[in-house]
C-alpha cells in the first residue's frame, strides 16, 4: 500500500508547476486579477490600465513589514507616489489562523492607526493572488507599467534587515524604479531578491 505521502508530494510538485507557469516575470504582461478590497469593493487590475500600479505584499506582524511601517517609510512612499497618480495596492495573503491575517475592519483600523495611504488593500486569505505573482516575502514589491507590463519584481530596498536604522542609508528600489520609469528611462534594477518573512500561505 502506498503511503498518502506520495500523493501529497505529487500534489506539491503539481502545485509548484502550476505556480511557476503563472509566476510574474519582468518584461512580460503582468497577470490580470480581480480581488476584493478591505472595503468590500472589487478591484480589477484592468481597471488601472494607463497607470502605474504598485503591489505591496503585507503582514502587519512581520518584523520586516514593521520596519517599514513603524518608521513611516512605507506610508511616505505610498503618499508620495499615489499623489503622482500611481495606484498602490497592498496585498494580504496571510491565511486565516496565520500571522498577518486580519478581517477587513481590522485592516481598516490598522490603516487609520498607521496613517497608511494605499489606494486599496486586497484581501487574499486564500493566497490565489500571492500564488499568481509568486509573492514570497513580506514585503515583496511589484510594479506594473501603464501598458500592463511587469517592470519590477523584488525587494523594497537594498538592506535586507529588520532594523529601522538601516532605512536612511538604503537605496529604495521601488522609488528608483518608479522614478526611472516615469521619466521614460528603462528600470536599471528590475529584479532583486525580495527579503522579509515568508508569505503565510494556506497549506
Amino acid at each position, binding site marked *: 500500500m502506498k503511503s498518502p505521502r506520495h500523493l501529497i508530494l505529487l500534489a506539491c510538485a503539481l502545485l*509548484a508547476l502550476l505556480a511557476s507557469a503563472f*509566476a510574474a516575470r519582468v518584461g512580460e504582461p503582468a497577470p490580470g486579477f480581480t480581488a476584493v478590497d478591505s472595503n468590500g469593493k472589487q478591484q480589477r487590475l484592468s481597471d488601472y490600465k494607463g497607470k502605474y500600479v504598485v503591489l505591496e505584499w503585507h503582514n502587519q506582524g512581520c518584523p520586516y513589514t514593521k520596519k517599514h511601517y513603524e518608521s513611516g517609510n512605507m506610508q511616505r512612499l505610498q503618499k508620495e507616489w499615489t499623489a503622482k497618480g500611481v495606484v498602490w495596492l497592498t496585498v494580504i495573503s496571510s491565511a486565516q489562523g496565520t500571522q498577518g491575517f486580519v478581517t477587513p475592519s481590522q485592516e481598516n483600523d490598522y490603516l487609520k492607526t498607521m496613517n497608511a495611504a494605499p489606494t486599496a488593500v486586497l484581501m487574499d486569505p486564500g493566497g490565489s493572488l500571492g500564488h499568481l505573482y*509568486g509573492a514570497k516575502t513580506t514585503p515583496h514589491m511589484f510594479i506594473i507599467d501603464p501598458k500592463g507590463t511587469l517592470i519590477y519584481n523584488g525587494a523594497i530596498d537594498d538592506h535586507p534587515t529588520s532594523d529601522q536604522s538601516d532605512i536612511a542609508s538604503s537605496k529604495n528600489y521601488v522609488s528608483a524604479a518608479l522614478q526611472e520609469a516615469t521619466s521614460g528611462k528603462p528600470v536599471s534594477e528590475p529584479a532583486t531578491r525580495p527579503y522579509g518573512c515568508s508569505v503565510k500561505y494556506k497549506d
Partner: protein
Amino acid sequence: MLSTALNVTDVAKAICIPEGGTTGYYIAGMKSVALILYSVLSFFGYIQKIESAARHARVELLSRQTTLHPGANLQMGIHFILEPGWHIYWINPGDSGQPPVLKWQLPPGFSAGEIQWPRPERMQSSAELADYGYHDEALLMVPIHAPPFINNERLRGLRFAVEAKWLVCREVCIPEHASLELFLQSGATKENPATAKLFADAEKLLPIAMPRGWKAEAESRKSDFLLTVAGGKPITKAIFFPLDPGQIDNPAPQSLQATTHGAKITLKKSDLLLKQINVLRGVLVIPGGPAYQIEAPVRQPIQ
C-alpha cells in the same frame, strides 16, 4: 565523562534530518548535552553571556583553544541551540529570512575571518517558498587571527566579544540578538577538552572542495540549468544549494539523474534571473555523505 554525554553523532543526525523528521529523543538528548556543556564551560569561565534578547535560541560564544599564543590562530564559534521547530538561516537564506550577522570586538591586533557555514538544510514551507538554514543546533565557526605579539597584562586575560544578531523563525520570525564574550590567557596553545568534540563534529559538516579530478559544469538552457558533476561514482541522491540568491528557483523540485561518474541535476532558473551568469556557485549536499563546494562555469546556449 563529557565526551560520552556529548553524543555528537546524534547532533549531526539531527541537523541532517529534514523538517518534521526530528524526534524528541534527539532534541532531549541535545538539550541535556548542551546544558552539561554550558555549566562546565561557565564554571571554567570560557563563556560568559552578558546580554541577550534570545527567546527561541540559546547562544554561546565558544573557543576551541583554552589559551592563546602569539601568531597562532584561534577558532571560535557561535553555538546556537534552538527551540524545537525553530530555525536560523544559511548565508543564502533562500526565499525569506536573513543569515546571522556577527560584529566582533577583539583585542588589539586580532582579526576575525568569515563565518564557516555548515551545510544547510532545505526547508520548504509552500509551493513558492524554500529556505536554507539550520534546525536544533548549529555551530558557526569563525577563525580568529592572532598577531605575532600579544600584550597581555590583564589578570582575566584578553577579552573576545561578539554582538550576534539573527532571525529565528518557525511559522513567524523574530529578530534576536546577544552580546557574548570570553576571556583567554596567553600560554601554550591547547585544545579545549570541553569543546573539542563539538568543533571537530562541526568541521565534518563544512562543505569541502571536490576531490581532485572531479569537475562541475553547468549548461544554461531556456528555463533551467543542467549541472553536471563528474569524476567519481554515480551519485543517486543530492541537493544543490545555491550561494547566490536569485539564480535558481529555490522551491522547484531538482531532478537528479545519476551518471556513471556522478550526476546531472536540473535546476529551474529563478524568475528574478534576467541576465546570463558565468558561474553557478553553491554546495552540493549528498545525504549521509560529504557536501561539496561547487563552482561550475556556465556554458551559454548556442544561438
